[in-house]
């Protein structure tokens, strides 16, 4: 680096790795190259498309939805009164359905996902590890609509009997009697929640696995060295370290569950109501958009797009906070 030319301000942008890049700097320091500038510009524009698309999504959908927002005001999200024929669009029941179904999905999916992630990283014999990844890959690869098809034609009709048995057992009980109430066709909040749980398990598992894999083995060996059983080691060394990352993974799963459309549209039962009865049919934001869009026009269509805007807003908030948690976690790893 004795050459005086390295003293010239660097014409090329900073490199990914600050310790590296002397070669590029040496060349760039000599002459500013048009080809390089152009290539950098094209790459930058490609990267910026992401921001442009996100901004366009927000602007264009809000503009189409504006008539409905203007007409309904706040009652769009605070009332449960969805009568398109009379121009009344209160979407509270759909928001309730989306949240209820997603939370149900998390209740089922999180213990299973964390269990699988722990198994794959801490307990599985070496040769099983890749097959765990394989199973998760296949679960994630099955399209939403195929889960929906299975859900509407096989799962819902068959699970109806189970719901009736459970509902009958708890009938007359104070709280549980309401939660596990009567069912009609098997299509219900619970069915949608269960199908969603299957669908978000792969993403929660794979993100949790990544987080658990960052636990330093010195911590594990220290725990084992003190005579801990495997479970004690997991509780003392693995879980405290990875808690933040797992929370982020769970929130990303939540975002995925809220936006999941087709499977929910097929199995939730399409009945906008706010009820604590998990076995009753309900409806969710994404589901109602896809089910009613075909017959919609004018203010009705505008209201459905408005539901999309609300959904977009909620998922953005969930995703941004989840990514925030995960990236804070990444920094901690990088800093350690």
């Amino acid at each position, binding site marked *: 680096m004795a050459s005086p030319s390295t003293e010239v301000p660097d014409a090329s942008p*900073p490199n990914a*790795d*600050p310790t*590296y890049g*002397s*070669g*590029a700097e040496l*060349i*760039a320091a000599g002459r500013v190259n048009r*080809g*390089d500038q*152009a290539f*950098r510009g094209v790459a*930058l524009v*490609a*990267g910026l*498309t*992401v*921001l442009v698309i*996100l901004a*366009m*999504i927000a602007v*264009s959908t809000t503009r189409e939805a504006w008539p409905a927002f203007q007409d309904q005001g706040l009652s769009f999200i605070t009332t449960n009164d969805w009568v398109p024929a009379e121009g009344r669009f209160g979407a509270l029941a759909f928001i309730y359905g989306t949240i209820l179904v997603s939370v149900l999905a998390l209740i089922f999916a999180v*213990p*299973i996902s*964390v*269990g699988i992630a*722990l198994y794959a990283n801490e307990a*599985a014999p*070496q040769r099983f590890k890749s097959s765990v990844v394989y*199973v*998760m*890959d*296949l*679960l994630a*690869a099955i*399209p939403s*609509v*195929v889960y*929906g098809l*299975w859900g509407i*034609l096989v799962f819902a009709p068959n699970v109806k009997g189970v719901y009736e048995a459970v509902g009958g057992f708890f009938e007359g009980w104070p709280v549980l009697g309401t939660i596990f109430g009567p069912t009609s066709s098997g299509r219900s909040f619970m069915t949608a929640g269960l199908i969603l749980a299957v669908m978000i*398990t792969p993403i929660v598992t794979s993100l949790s696995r990544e987080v658990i894999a960052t636990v330093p*083995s010195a911590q*594990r060996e220290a725990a084992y060295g003190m005579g801990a*059983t495997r*479970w004690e080691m997991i509780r003392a060394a693995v879980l405290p370290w990875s808690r933040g990352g797992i929370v982020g993974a769970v929130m990303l799963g939540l975002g*995925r569950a*809220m*936006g999941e*459309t087709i499977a929910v549209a097929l199995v939730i039962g399409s009945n906008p109501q706010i009820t604590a009865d998990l076995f009753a049919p309900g409806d969710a934001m994404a589901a109602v958009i896809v089910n009613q869009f*075909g017959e919609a026009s004018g203010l009705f269509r505008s209201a459905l*797009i408005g539901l999309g805007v609300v959904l*977009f807003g909620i*998922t*953005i908030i969930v*995703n*941004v906070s989840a*990514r925030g948690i995960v*990236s804070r976690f990444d920094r901690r790893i990088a800093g350690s």
Partner: protein
Amino acid sequence: MTDVLERQDDSERLLLDATTSRSRKVRNCVASIWMVGSLVVAMVPLAFVIGYVVVKGIGLINVTWFTEDIQARSREAGGGMAPAIVGTLLITGAATLMAVPLGILGAIYLNEYGGKGRTAGLIRFMSDVMTGVPSIVMGLFVYTVFTLTFGLNGLGGALALACLMLPIVIRSTEEMLKLVPDELRDGSYALGNRKWRTVTTVVLPAAFGGIVSGVMLAIARAAGETAPLVFTIGAARALNPNLLDGANAALSLQIFNNSQSPFPASQDRAWAAALTLVAIVFLFTIAARVVSARVARRHSA
């Protein structure tokens, strides 16, 4: 790590057994059952779904399935699924053509130029956020900016799928570019190559396998999507190879519509379409795995 366990001698294990109280052993055992049980529980729906799709779908799969137009009368059996198969392949292909070059260029900016800068950080973060945007919102977006003006056609569907694929391609490609050792870049600079030549002739070829694997996963994800197509491609029953003009068809949309039908003939079509779609998607997923396994082997060698 498990190798810690595997390295344990029998004598150590005996010592541990002797010094570990019964309740600790029981708790350890319960935890192990939970972990293994979770995997088993997750495999049950996988087995059921795949089993049903194969058993119920295989009956209709024959030559006419791949060659004939879609049956117009939902009560009656017969007809094929050719328009939907071709539609899915064309629409996904067009989406790939749009999203992959853009995504790879974006990733090049992030890894080779932007680095830890603020712009790159913002793009990186927003790509992550964009992977979480529901596919139905992408569909509504394309509906508002494209379909309202140009009508229902295959290109609208392709645009919506491209929006879904773009962030996936960017992030997976960037991960692969990160793996390319800096010695390769330095070597290229030492030969007098400029940065853009280094990127296109050294870095990209070195990361090629990994990029292909990421792209194939993105294709698999897009091919199975339904919600973005509901608003954008319409419903065609005849083969339409022209993405720019007229309604098109897709396997996912056929499954969605036929699964809601009360008629067994339509439901059968839904199962067979599901089998076809799952086969296409698995093909890409497994191919991606094979490619990335090969890449991993080369790296470790």
